[in-house]
């Protein structure tokens, strides 16, 4: 099947408006006759569920957590971008569009990104109307801050809990519709398969995680807002339950999977402390507004810091290497995430890591304390030369901005970041790859949609900070509700979809067989044993830097591990009860397939772009080297085994942005 991205005709700035004017609508009386299933209740799924229900559709929503409010969007910290230009610093729809395409290393679809930039301002208006308490200045107007890879302040925020506040906004909009009976909410349910009838997505198979019951649910369209697949790495900033199962099962039923190798490794996370570690914790990118990243210039100081004989605060300014400011003077500490992560790895690989494992760099707020403190002393008419006072005043300001992050750091590391610099290291954080979708956010399966992180479309090979929340809400509030109507307009006379069909029988049987096999396997090792092994392969061979040899080994090793898993995994308990190990096993089984496709995709992409860095393709300065012949989206078609997946290419055309070297110097 040839890929048709269905990009509307016309100038880029008019495409979305023209498209909206031309597509089919469903009349309000007919919307009542149409059911839509939405899987996942994060920013994308939650906002889509609420909006579709407001429009009059019957929504059936599903989440594996005990409440829609707990989806992992809740953990996003720093903020959400919008081209409001409230700061008057030269922002515009075009600039947000340009920054996002450049930030994605020219590997995203122009038309989708422009639409994202267009609707970004509506998101902020909508959220404020819902009662989202964004940060404000003393005049009562909304405040902004800066994120990496841009030269304006366009990020709206609510301290370090922006994702929480936005998700609670979408959750409240959902609650209003649940109360009205327009959304039927199924919590503690996991989607195990999508059901295709006559070539169209018409329902799902789900498992009730409390009773273990396998259930059939039908609808006229199915929407996946099921997030990313970074937990393939075992250790990541994702929630423990985040998984690829819904997306992967959709892939196996015909949805192409795009750019699986594009993974974001976030530069500022708390370093790994030991083998017991179950997850990694992010320290928001917003901290790079005020924190400066450094390692010692000299190896002897590195040794002294590691053995505890030297404190970082004792090291003279001249003996510190602020390597981002040195290498990228124009953007400094606010370079995009891929660039910052690789720079940290480069210093640590060269032996300058500051903790015992050698995998940590400093994020230091000392100069921000002094800068803010001086300003405060001036405003309050206090002694501007009193260093102790100034430091204290400055710390108060920083506490107001990032207090919860500093507290979180102290709880985990047991060090006070007001007194000593934070230690950070890159960690897996987001996946730009995902299910391939056209301009309407429809996958290659008619009636099956993917929104938010679950799709691939907007971030190219690297996502800019504060753009995930923007994309999730753009898709859910302002894009899908229009585009899905165009498809559903043909379904007004279809009537309810029956769950008593051979397609539902087959899908249920397939899901039940997997569960029976897992629960009766009687192997010797737990699910985590295999998941950790997969994570090690992924991190060591498909991580921040990749090469042909490693990737080929990874493909073989993952396939072997998958075989071992099916022979030897051990699941206690029964299928017909609450059984977390069984749920985990199903997810890890899918990660073991996805991981292999991931490595295969990385192997095929013989270039470096954004988060995908191949050792073989770098400039003499060690920067990523893009190759013109790889200016396409890799969309993989499932053919039985990951190794047999077939590559389809969507060529990327840039008509409104000149593709040039992506420089932050």
């Amino acid at each position, binding site marked *: 099947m040839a890929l048709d991205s269905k990009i509307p005709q016309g100038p880029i700035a008019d495409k979305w408006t023209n498209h909206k004017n031309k597509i089919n609508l469903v009349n309000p009386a007919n919307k009542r006759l149409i059911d839509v299933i939405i899987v996942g209740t994060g920013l994308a799924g939650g906002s889509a569920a609420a909006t579709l229900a*407001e429009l009059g559709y019957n929504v059936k929503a599903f989440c594996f*957590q*005990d*409440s829609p*409010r*707990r989806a*992992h969007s*809740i*953990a996003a910290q720093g903020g959400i971008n919008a081209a409001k230009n409230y700061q008057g610093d030269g922002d515009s729809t075009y600039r947000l569009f340009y920054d996002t395409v450049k930030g994605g290393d020219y590997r995203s679809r122009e038309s989708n990104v422009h639409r994202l930039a267009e609707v970004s301002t*509506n998101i*902020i*208006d*909508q*959220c*404020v*109307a*819902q*009662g989202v*308490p*964004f*940060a*404000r200045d003393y*005049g*009562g*107007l*909304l405040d902004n801050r800066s994120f990496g890879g841009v030269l304006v302040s366009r990020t709206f925020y*609510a*301290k370090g*809990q922006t994702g*929480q506040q936005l998700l*609670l906004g979408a959750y*409240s909009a959902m*609650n*209003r519709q*649940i*109360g009205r009976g327009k959304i039927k*909410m199924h*919590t503690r349910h996991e989607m195990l398969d999508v059901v295709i009838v006559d070539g169209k997505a018409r329902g799902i198979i789900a498992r009730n995680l409390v009773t273990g019951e396998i259930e059939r649910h039908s609808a006229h369209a199915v929407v996946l807002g099921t997030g990313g697949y970074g937990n393939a790495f075992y250790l990541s900033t994702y*929630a*423990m339950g985040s998984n690829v199962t819904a997306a992967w099962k959709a892939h196996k039923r015909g949805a192409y999977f795009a750019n699986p190798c594009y993974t974001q490794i976030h530069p500022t996370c708390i370093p790994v402390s*030991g083998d*017991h570690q*179950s*997850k990694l914790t992010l320290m928001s990118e917003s901290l790079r507004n005020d924190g400066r990243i450094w390692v010692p210039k000299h190896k002897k100081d590195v040794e002294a810091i590691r053995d505890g004989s030297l404190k970082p605060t004792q090291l003279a300014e001249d003996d510190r290497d602020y390597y981002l400011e040195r290498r990228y003077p124009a953007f400094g500490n606010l370079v995009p995430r891929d660039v910052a992560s690789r720079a940290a790895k480069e210093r640590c690989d060269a032996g300058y890591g500051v903790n015992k494992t050698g995998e940590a760099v400093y994020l230091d707020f000392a100069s921000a304390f002094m800068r803010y403190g001086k300003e405060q002393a001036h405003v309050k008419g206090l002694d501007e030369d009193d260093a102790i006072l100034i430091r204290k005043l400055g710390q108060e300001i920083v506490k107001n901005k990032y207090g919860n992050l500093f507290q*979180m750091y102290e*709880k*985990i590391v047991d060090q006070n970041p007001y007194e000593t610099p934070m230690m950070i290291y890159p960690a897996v954080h987001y996946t730009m790859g995902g299910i391939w979708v056209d301009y309407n956010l429809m996958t290659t399966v008619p009636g099956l949609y993917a929104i938010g992180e679950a799709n691939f479309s907007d971030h190219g090979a690297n996502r800019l900070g504060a753009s995930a929340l923007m994309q999730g809400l753009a898709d859910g*509030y*302002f894009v899908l509700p229009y585009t899905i109507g165009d498809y559903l307009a043909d379904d007004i006379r279809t009537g309810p979809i029956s769950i008593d069909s051979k397609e539902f029988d087959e899908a249920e049987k397939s899901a039940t067989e997997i569960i029976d096999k897992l629960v009766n396997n009687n192997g010797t*090792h*737990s699910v*985590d*044993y295999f998941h950790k092994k997969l994570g090690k392969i992924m991190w060591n061979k498909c991580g921040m830097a990749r090469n042909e040899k490693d990737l080929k080994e990874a493909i073989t090793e993952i396939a072997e591990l998958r075989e071992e898993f099916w022979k030897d995994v*051990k699941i*206690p*308990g029964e299928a017909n*009860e*609450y059984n*977390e*190990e069984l749920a985990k096993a199903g997810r890890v089984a899918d990660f073991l397939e996805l991981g292999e496709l991931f490595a295969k995709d990385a192997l095929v992409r013989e270039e470096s772009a954004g988060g995908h860095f191949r050792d073989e393709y770098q400039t003499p300065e060690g920067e990523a080297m893009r190759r013109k012949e790889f200016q396409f989206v890799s969309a993989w078609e499932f053919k039985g085994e990951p190794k047999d997946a077939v590559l389809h290419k969507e060529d990327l055309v840039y008509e409104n942005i000149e593709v040039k070297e992506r420089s932050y110097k």
Partner: protein
Amino acid sequence: MNLTLKIWRQKGANDKGKIVDYPITEVSPDMSFLEMLDVLNQELIEKGEEPVAFDHDCREGICGSCSMFVNGQAHGPDSMVTVCQLHMRSFKDGDTIFIEPWRATAFPVIKDLIVDRSAFDRIQQAGGFISVNTSGNTQDANAIPIDKHDADTAFDAATCIGCGACVASCKNSSAMLFVSAKVSQFALLPQGKVEATDRVLNMVKQMDDEGFGNCTNTGACEVECPKGISLENIARMNREYLSASLKG
């Protein structure tokens, strides 16, 4: 560290539960409390026993999933943390640790340490929202300036993670801190004032229908709240409720 864990085990909602002893060895002080339970569960699985079921997801103190009583305190001995942020350095070698689920009529046990908190969702469904449709035509976000103090106070109330520690810590199993946090967030914002009357009446009614107890101003909820939600919210809700009742 070597520890003795005394954990509530309960097969299902209708089964009788009991405390079971589990010795655990070689616990690192850098582990989080849940990572320590992960280690125990791995041992149980390898032995062919059922692991201890508990709710958890983000493991960074924001999703509100984790919910356990540790030595008689919601989320354990540290203040301002959820149990996923509690680290083993808060304990000493040789300690005995009691681990139990939230106990409240409105939060029935599902299995082991997992309880059903859907009552909280139903309270929010009764009125925890502002009735505004998504349209793309709402007024500009800066059209109504909001006093920074009010905006910040609304934010502080809105940081509630819905974990239920307030209910579990209250001798009356009252949900007043949870409900008042939502009522306060909206009452403090101009956007929320329009339907403030119905909101507080409907949410309080639902809270009572769910079987939560009354507030007797003991303040245990505020002490145990991992997000430091203030008792002032309860006072504000009482004012809102009184004025709504007089209007209504």
